[in-house]
């Protein structure tokens, strides 16, 4: 029997974690053991896990620093709001409407990624950090004065006010400047989990292919990668655009879980929060991203009842996550446990 490589094993572990998470919470929900706060947190958790995974593709695998990941989430969120509203009458099935919204949101965020990536990724140095930081702020400010409405004639845009949209009777204002988007809640936990599994599938397959090897080779040694005939800009762009598209999809999933979403939700703090998930989970470590993003998204909510100790517990968990995912000794321990298992199983094989 062909032995599974460690990486392949980890990929399956990651799928397993996600599926286990889904099953546990589905059971809790169906048996009525899930508080309504927790229920409300399920889709945000999934969205932030996707955000962390996709940012890890840029930061961990491609080795570039992006400080505006929430910008792509924002593009996806507001695209999703407009698309899903515009399709309300045309496509009554909410699952289909959600899927179409997510796809278009991902495409729009991907296009934003291309527009930023092409000029910036050709440069050497940390320009991407600066430009993505600016992008996040610009997107927020543009959305702050964007008004979008939908009526029977189609979609209307304005940068002034809702009045300028000139909607017909029965028309709806979808995006109302700083007030954000008013949305029909159509996201579902199940759809979110499917999206998350797809994102994991794409990232993990990408990493273990010629394209992923090229991306990581460029990260490890740009000059040697060029000397091996690799087109550096192309592969940095591939990683960046895929990541942006995934963030767009996450943004759409997130937005369509709420009645309203304001542009300021996706500001610099959110970008940094996602970066914190990635760093705490371990740069380049997908399992770590999943766990860190899930824990740290849900924790502040869970701790509301312990007002006084909330920040203390949050800090302790931060430290624990960091130790568990980045500490060499603990990793070694986990590895040695893994080895023991392997020896046992290979012993069985031999017998």
């Amino acid at each position, binding site marked *: 029997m062909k032995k599974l490589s460690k990486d392949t094993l980890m990929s399956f572990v990651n799928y397993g974690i996600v599926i286990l998470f889904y099953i546990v919470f589905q059971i809790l929900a169906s048996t009525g053991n899930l508080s309504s706060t927790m229920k409300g947190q399920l889709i945000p958790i999934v969205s932030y896990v996707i955000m962390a995974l996709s940012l890890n593709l840029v930061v961990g695998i491609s080795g570039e620093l992006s400080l505006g990941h929430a910008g792509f989430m924002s593009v996806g969120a507001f695209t999703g709001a407009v698309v899903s509203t515009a399709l309300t009458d045309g496509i009554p099935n909410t699952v289909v409407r959600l899927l179409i919204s997510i796809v278009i949101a991902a495409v729009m965020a991907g296009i934003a990624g291309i527009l930023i990536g092409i000029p910036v990724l050709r440069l050497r*140095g940390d320009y991407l950090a600066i430009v993505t930081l600016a992008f996040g702020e610009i997107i927020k400010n543009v959305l702050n004065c964007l008004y979008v409405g939908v009526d029977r004639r189609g979609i209307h845009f304005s940068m002034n006010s809702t009045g300028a949209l000139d909607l017909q009777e029965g028309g709806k204002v979808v995006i109302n400047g700083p007030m954000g988007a008013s949305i029909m809640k159509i996201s579902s936990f199940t759809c979110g989990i499917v999206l998350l599994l797809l994102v994991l599938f794409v990232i993990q397959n*990408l990493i273990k292919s010629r394209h*992923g*090897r*090229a991306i990581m080779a460029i*990260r490890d040694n740009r000059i040697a990668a060029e*000397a*091996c*005939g690799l087109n550096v800009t192309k592969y940095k762009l591939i990683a960046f655009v895929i990541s942006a598209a995934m963030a767009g999809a996450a943004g759409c999933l997130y937005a369509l879980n709420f009645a309203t979403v304001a542009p300021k939700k996706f500001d610099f703090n959110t970008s940094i929060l996602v970066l914190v998930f990635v760093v705490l989970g371990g740069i380049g470590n997908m399992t770590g991203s999943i766990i860190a993003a899930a824990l740290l998204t849900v924790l502040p909510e869970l701790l509301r009842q312990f007002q006084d100790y909330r920040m203390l517990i949050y800090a302790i968990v931060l430290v624990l996550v960091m130790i568990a995912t980045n500490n060499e000794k603990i990793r070694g321990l986990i590895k040695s446990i893994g080895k023991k298992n392997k020896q046992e199983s290979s012993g069985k094989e031999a017998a």
Partner: protein
Amino acid sequence: MSNQKETRYVDVPGPGRIPERDKGRGPVLECTHLGIEFGGLKAVEEFNIAVGATEIGGLIGPNGAGKTTVFNLLTKVYQPTHGVILLDGKDTHGMSTAQVNQAGIARTFQNIRLFDKLSVEDNVKVGMHNNVKYHLPSSVFRLPKFWQEEKRAHESALELLDIFGMADLADVKASSLPYGAQRRLEIVRALATKPKLLLLDEPAAGMNPSETEELMNNIRKIRDTFGIAVLLIEHDMNLVMGICENIIVLNFGKVIAKGTPEEIQNDPVVIEAYLGSQADETGSEGFAASAAKEAQKKKAEKEKAHMSEVEEASVDVEE
């Protein structure tokens, strides 16, 4: 000292001569008036050579002579300020490092540049990147083309590693290899790009005599099995005189001598350049390789750390 029969050379039009056996194919590399200036410093000037299609050439000279700079010019890490580089008769003007590699020049680095976090096998597979052919959708969705090509890549990566007996190290992380093995892996990775010309920058640095001996045999084996040209920079005179058919000596950026090992060993200008600074080490007869080696090694050791830093820094500046 030279343990091989002398190669017979023929003159070709252009900057030099190539082995008679390569006459039919013409030179794989021709440089004419090649040079580069950093600010006012002429790091390399008037570099003229021809390399035959299956020739093993050597580039020697004291530290700081401009040898690595020549490699950086050939691979377009630096854009030349003067001269022409013809690869298989085609001008490489305006090409990027990646394009030059695709056109047929592969190299190793004096200060090792592996993909540290990748496995040995993946390092080789990155070298094979342009010869493994499937598109992004095949990667992401694991289409049949992916499996076919990856299987082929895996097999040829192991085959290439086997040249240096490294197939059993395939799963090891590149950065955890011992020094000598890292140098060998760089050669394998370069070979994986299917070059016509292989540039080796101090391949024996840090190797013990038996490793060096094995390396010599392997360089010859590579030339013979793949039918490619090799140009190498090396301070180990046993290696240079043992396998190079043609040697170019650089000093202060200029070519001060060219010729067969025999010719170089007896060239007074070369002896002067190499041994001039070590006045107390006279008494060596001819091109006393051992003396030169000792002196050079001492100097190299002292300067190695410094030089690689300089190279690293200067390359970064160039970026």
